[in-house]
């Protein structure tokens, strides 16, 4: 029987993921304060509807009983990517479902299906979420570049290049999400891991090595990027609410 603090790790996972879910859900249902100046919160990007969005203002078909928030239209994609991520799966099966509570610790339930049948067999869809996550990386990079373009106070209607702390926050967000996404096990497999003869595909073998390198620290990338996404939203939100002043470096 284990006598060490085996409960600590699953508890931290529970608190960490739980805190993120609570914050992200709260932020997603706000529907306001997700943009300030050239900054856009990653929880709302890509902005499909709303001011300065891809498809114009709030659509007519939006149900009346639901607060309008463009985040609700897109968050399923990065959410699904994380939920089906191999690292998170192993972590939340322990932290949220005690399956097992931790290694060699007894479980509260007798029955066990694993990922062999419905519902968890759907975890196998992960690679499709990964394809979407790659598109989100492009989108978030575009957001970063746009965050450098400020309305020129002296000449209304014109834009100038500039750098504020918010842009750095957005860039770090993109960087951490890239490290997380590009270390994905599905990418590792598709880029070359699925082949036995890596020597026959030298370019892909190189890419495989890079992905494997990121993959070794996939857990760390997962947590850092998760925290930073929430922090980026928080930063933009605080700017939008006037609680903090973004520092413009140039």
């Amino acid at each position, binding site marked *: 029987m284990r006598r060490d603090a085996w409960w600590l790790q699953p508890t931290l996972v529970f608190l960490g993921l739980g805190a993120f879910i609570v914050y992200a859900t709260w932020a997603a249902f706000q529907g306001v304060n997700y943009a300030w100046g050239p900054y856009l919160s990653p929880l709302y990007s890509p902005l499909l509807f709303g001011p300065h969005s891809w498809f114009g203002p709030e659509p007519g078909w939006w149900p009346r009983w639901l607060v309008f928030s463009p985040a609700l239209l897109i968050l399923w994609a990065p959410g699904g990517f994380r939920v089906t991520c191999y690292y998170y799966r192993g972590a939340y099966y322990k932290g949220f479902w005690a399956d*097992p509570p931790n290694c060699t610790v007894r479980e509260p339930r007798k029955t066990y*299906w694993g*990922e062999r049948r419905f519902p968890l067999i759907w975890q196998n869809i992960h690679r499709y979420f990964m394809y979407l996550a790659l598109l989100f990386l492009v989108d978030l990079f575009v957001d970063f570049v746009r965050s450098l373009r400020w309305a020129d106070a002296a000449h209304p209607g014109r834009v100038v290049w500039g750098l504020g702390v918010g842009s750095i926050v957005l860039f770090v967000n993109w960087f951490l999400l890239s490290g997380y996404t590009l270390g994905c096990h599905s990418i590792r497999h598709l880029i070359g891991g*699925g082949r*036995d003869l890596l*020597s026959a595909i030298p370019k892909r073998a190189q890419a495989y090595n890079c992905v494997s390198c990121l993959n070794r620290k996939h857990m760390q990338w997962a947590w850092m990027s998760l925290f930073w996404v929430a922090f980026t939203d928080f930063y933009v939100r605080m700017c939008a609410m006037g609680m903090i002043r973004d520092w413009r470096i140039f």
Partner: protein
Amino acid sequence: MAQAMFRIWRGDARGGGFQDFTVQISDGMVVLDVVHQIQAEQANDLAVRWNCKAGKCGSCSAEINGHPKLMCMTRLSSLPLDRPVTVEPMRTFPLVRDLVTDVSWNYEVKKRIKPFQPRTPDAADGTWRMDQRDVDRVQEFRKCIECFLCQDVCHVLREHQLHREYIGPRFYVHTAALEMHPLDVANRLADLRGPGGLGYCNITKCCTKVCPEGIKITDNAIIPLKERVVDEFYDPVRRLFRIFRPKPQPPPAKGAPEAEPEPTRTAASSSAPR
């Protein structure tokens, strides 16, 4: 000389319990030394299996303070000695006596896995050519010493006793060594998904944590195998493409040698899975 208390499980399949022993300990001792000392001085009939005392034969697996470990590789200096140290047999396998379990189930499982099936020899003399880069990956899996600690810790076996539907992490490592081998042409994906029970593994990485050889079982063997199974059975686009793809290469010609390929200048020697 310092003293320590060891709480060792004694008994057989009919039952048993912990028995406490006070032992004299000295620098550099490992748990197996203590067990031997107890066997020599206090309990001559204490059953324990061991062989190499060097972490290479995989015989001395046990649970020390609840953690699956090799007794011969667990130094006392790595354990808190202010409390009794518990030593128990592996829980996943039937108990023979005291610290000895019957691990023969594993050998039966291994027999069911399709053996190494090399492609047609590359050269007229019946030898093959391999690129070192292609064998590098499976080299990791060949470090396995069959201690079965990963089998012991895996909750699918340990807690849910699904021995009949699940082959366990050790044999995912074994299958990965075969499946990823540059010369092997057999397909074991349907076996993995069906009788191999790969879907039962919920990637909680306990096996990786206990492996004394440091094999990244979950990340390098199990998840890549899961991805291959997805390719074959769950990815609708892949399945669609497969309809239009030419059939895979035929199995090797009759009479092709079954043995491990001869090492050549470009071939890595010990790369055919055991």
